[in-house]
C-alpha cells in the first residue's frame, strides 16, 4: 500500500475525516517528530490526472489551509511510508526553515497578459521605421529583418521589466515576499506570486485592485488564497 501525500503542517488539522481525498480515500495524519503529513491510502504507483483527482488534491490542502499554513506537495506525489519518513528526517532543517518562511501567510497569484494588439504594434512600429531607407539586397534585407526582430524583443523585454518594477513598487508593502518572473516572448508576460500575511489579505486586495485599474492596457488574472506552492523552494 502506498500513500498519496498532500502536504506537511506544523499543526494538526481537525476534521480530516469529513473530506474526501484523491481516489475517494479519506485523508489522515501521520506525525513524525512534530511534523504532520496529510496523506491518504493509495493503491498503485501513479495517480491519474483527472479533474476529480486534481480537485480532491486541492480540496484536502484547502481544508488544511483554512486552519494553518501547510507546505503543499506537488500533485501526484505517491510514496511509501518509509520514503515519506526518510524525506521528513533528511529534510527536517530545510522544512523547518520553510515553515518559518510561510507561517501565518497565504499565496496570492497574479498573471499579467499582454494585449496582443499592443505587442503587434511594437513590431509594426519597428518595421515602419526601417522602411524609410533605400532599397537593399537580399543579404542586407535578412540582416535588417534580424535586427528588427532583436530590437522588438529588446523593447518587449524592457516593457516586461518595467511591469515587474511597477508591480513591486505598488505591492511590496502588502506582501511579505514575492516571486515575479517576466517572459516577454509569451502571452503571459508576468507571473507573480505574493506571500501575504493572513491579516493583510484585504490590504493586498485593495492594492491589486488599484494596480488593475491603473493599467487598463494589461489583462490581469488574479487568484488566491492558495497554499504557498511558490514558496516551497529554499530562497
Amino acid at each position, binding site marked *: 500500500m502506498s500513500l498519496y*501525500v498532500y*502536504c*506537511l503542517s506544523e499543526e494538526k488539522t481537525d476534521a480530516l475525516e469529513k473530506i474526501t481525498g484523491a481516489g475517494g480515500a479519506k485523508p489522515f495524519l501521520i506525525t513524525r517528530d512534530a511534523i504532520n503529513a496529510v496523506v491518504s491510502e493509495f493503491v498503485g*504507483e*501513479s*495517480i*491519474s*490526472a483527472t*479533474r476529480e483527482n*486534481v*480537485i480532491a*488534491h*486541492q480540496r484536502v490542502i484547502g481544508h488544511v489551509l483554512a486552519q494553518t499554513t501547510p*507546505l*503543499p*506537495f*506537488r*500533485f*501526484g*506525489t*505517491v*510514496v511509501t511510508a518509509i*520514503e*515519506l519518513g526518510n*524525506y521528513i528526517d533528511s529534510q527536517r532543517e530545510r522544512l523547518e526553515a520553510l515553515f518559518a518562511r510561510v507561517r501565518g501567510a497565504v*499565496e496570492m*497569484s497574479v*498573471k499579467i*497578459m499582454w494585449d496582443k494588439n499592443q505587442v503587434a504594434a511594437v513590431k509594426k512600429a519597428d518595421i515602419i521605421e526601417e522602411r524609410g531607407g533605400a532599397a537593399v539586397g537580399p543579404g542586407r534585407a535578412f540582416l535588417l529583418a534580424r535586427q528588427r526582430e532583436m530590437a522588438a524583443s529588446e523593447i518587449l523585454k524592457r516593457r516586461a521589466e518595467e511591469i515587474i518594477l511597477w508591480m513591486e513598487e505598488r505591492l511590496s508593502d502588502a506582501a511579505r515576499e514575492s516571486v515575479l518572473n517576466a517572459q516577454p516572448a*509569451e*502571452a*503571459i508576460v508576468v*507571473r507573480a506570486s505574493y506571500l501575504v500575511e493572513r491579516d493583510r489579505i484585504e490590504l493586498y486586495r485593495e492594492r491589486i485592485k488599484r494596480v*488593475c485599474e491603473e493599467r487598463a492596457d494589461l*489583462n*490581469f*488574472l*488574479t*487568484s488566491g488564497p*492558495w497554499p504557498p*506552492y*511558490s514558496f*516551497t523552494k529554499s530562497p
Partner: protein
Amino acid sequence: MIDEILQEEEYSELSFLEMLDHALNRGLVITGEITIAVADIDLIFVGLNLLIGSVETINQVLGTRARKESQGEQI
C-alpha cells in the same frame, strides 16, 4: 480586468486551470520525478506549460461569447 468580464462557468474553468497551474507546476517534491497517468499513458512530468493553455482557454471562451453576441444570442 479579466476577472470581471468572465461569466460564472468561464470563471470556474479558469479557476480549475489556475488550480492545475499551482498543483502541477509547484510544491514540494519527494522524488526526482513524479509520474501521473494521463488517459492511458504514463507521463513523466517534467513541466507542463499550462499557462499557455490558460490563455488559449481565455481567448476561446471570450471568442465564443463574442460570436454569440454578434449573432444576437442571449448569453
